[in-house]
């Protein structure tokens, strides 16, 4: 099944989609990477982070600073963001992972905002609020962007799946279910939580570095955005299905395509936000485990209606 989907996705650019459609598809794939990364920490390890923009932004700025300060291709940012973000999330984890539950969530929320303000003020390093602009993006055609982000997504998917099915994954779930019990079973919870955070951060950072290359412009308000990055990431996983392999992917499809579709309905005007909000509320009320998590329930619902 995953191979069939991968084959279909790999063949997608050959079908001659318009560049608008490709833009949306690229965004879907990019968001599913961020969603899957968040899922590892939030879904499997149970540490709900409201600050994934911090990792996204650090990744994006790694690529951007490589371009402005070292004058090398920002594409190096995609691999190089991994050690940078790993180090960064290790330090951040050292601080925030001492906290649990809502306190952890609030600390991560603050960490995203702290990073935004930091990036705004390190003017010599980050360019401050003027942001970083790439003079010329690598390709006009979207095919290569698509394959690169698809590669990142495939690696992310496989990594998350392998991890979740390994001993490590069981440790994560044990921590999610009851941290004290896990501790008493001899699991080094601090170590494994940090590990989950670092891996999750790195994957998000890689997506951020890709964003820099793809959009060609970043500033602190764009990549360290609380709503547009951190909250959207959580929504993607919540809508798709927490702690499921395909949940973030489905969530990304819905969040990007549905939002775009509702937005472009003529005559709806600015009410599109309201509609989209209502739709999300409905999904969360009736499918609390997300579309993938509650798929049997969804199927039953549809069947019942038919009969």
């Amino acid at each position: 099944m995953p191979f069939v989907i991968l084959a279909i996705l790999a063949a997608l650019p050959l079908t001659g989609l318009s560049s608008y459609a490709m833009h949306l598809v690229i965004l879907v794939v990019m968001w599913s990477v961020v969603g899957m990364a968040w899922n590892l920490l939030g879904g499997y390890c149970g540490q709900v982070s409201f600050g994934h923009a911090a990792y996204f932004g650090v990744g994006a700025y790694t690529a951007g600073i490589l371009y402005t300060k070292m004058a090398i291709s920002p594409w190096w940012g995609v691999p190089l963001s991994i050690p940078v973000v790993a180090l960064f999330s290790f330090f951040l984890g050292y601080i925030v992972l001492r906290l649990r539950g809502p306190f952890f969530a609030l600390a991560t929320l603050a960490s995203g905002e702290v990073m935004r303000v930091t990036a705004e003020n390190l003017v010599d390093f980050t360019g401050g609020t003027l942001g970083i602009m790439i003079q010329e993006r690598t390709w006009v055609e979207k095919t290569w962007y698509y394959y690169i982000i698809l590669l990142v997504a495939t690696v992310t998917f496989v990594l998350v799946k392998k991890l979740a099915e390994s001993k490590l994954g069981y440790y994560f779930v044990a921590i999610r279910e009851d941290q004290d019990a896990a501790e008493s079973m001899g699991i080094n919870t601090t170590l494994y939580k940090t590990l989950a955070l670092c891996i999750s951060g790195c994957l998000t950072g890689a997506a951020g570095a890709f964003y820099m290359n793809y959009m060609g412009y970043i500033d602190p308000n764009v990549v360290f955005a609380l709503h547009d990055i951190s909250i959207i990431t959580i929504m993607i996983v919540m809508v798709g299905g927490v702690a499921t392999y395909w949940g973030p992917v489905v969530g990304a499809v819905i969040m990007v395509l549905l939002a775009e579709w509702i937005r472009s309905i003529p005559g709806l005007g600015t009410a599109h936000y309201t509609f989209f909000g209502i739709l999300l509320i409905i999904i969360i009320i009736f499918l609390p485990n997300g579309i993938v998590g509650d798929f049997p329930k969804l199927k039953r619902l549809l069947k019942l209606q038919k009969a």
Partner: protein
Amino acid sequence: MKRLSFAVVFIFVLSIFAAPVLAANTFELVIPLPLTGKQAKFGEMMKRSYEMAAEEVNARGGIKKKKLILAFEDSGAKPETARAIVERLIDVKKQPIIVGEYTSACAKAVAAVAEERKTPYLIVASADDEITQQNYKYVFRQNQVNDHYADALVSFFRDVVKPRTIAILYESSAFGTSGAEAMAKDAAKLGVRVVMKEKYEAGSVDFRPLLSKVKAARPDVVYMVSYVMDASLLMKQIKELRVDAKLFAGGAAGFAIPEFIENAKDAAEYVVSATLWTEQLKYPGAGEYAEKYKARYGAYPSYHGASAYSAIFVVKNALERAKSWTPDAIRDSLKATNLMTAFGPIRFENREGYRNQNFMDTLAIQVQSGRFETIWPLNHASKRYIYPIPTWRQRR
């Protein structure tokens, strides 16, 4: 249910991929704008102005006998969304010219796409200097660049106020930062000492700590760059704390729109601001446009609206002169634009490292008895400037 879900999917696919069928006698122009979020106020004003201009164009026979139909898409000031809109316009709708957007971040995203896809893009009110410094061939900007926003204000300082010190407060955004940088540079040129240069978070609820510092620094001029709500709150709290200076000055945007006076009330009195346009200008159509806008929406528009209004006429003019309605032909005719509009004379020049940039006179306005009056340069002035201004204590 199954059939219904199939239909939904079908409509969805259709709405993404199908190009709408255009009637032969119409020309549809879709304009991306921020209609939700923090910048919605500006987006709304621009939308109304575009619509007014389109009505006038159609009343006079349209563009080359084609009726101009406007449609708007909300980008919510998100670069990703702005890009999605423009990709669709260029690729699916085959729209040969792009007009619009407001925030500099979105304009940068749109400009990069327009350049790559060789479609002309007319920027209406995004001020960040960088956008037209990229040597983009297809990107045109009709509003003045941020670096020059305060030109009139600076000459007012030089000739009238003659300050020795200045404090610069600005919001942390691309607009705020580049405005503050420009003012710091101008101050250095005038020999004015910058005693304080501080940024604040846009949307702050309390500026007192910042203003206490200003009070302690005792600058001759307090110069502030911010959007709407911050601008009026700053002035209200300046009044509360009785921070006195020879002059309070704003750098366009939040200080130059009617909401500023509405919200700040008497604290706004005597505040001088840079702006690009006022309804008192003697450009043909400027007064008529402003009165019509006021009659319809109850307040005078700011330069954002005037620029949007004029943009439609610039597009009309370029389309009429274009040899064909292909992106390249339209680009060439835009480049050759030499048009007098309600916003002022429009000509796209390459100089000072900018490309396809319209350079125009900027103005200084002052709030006098609850109204914006143009005070500088003197040939555009509607009223004489009031200087020196009374201290807060004297105003009672």
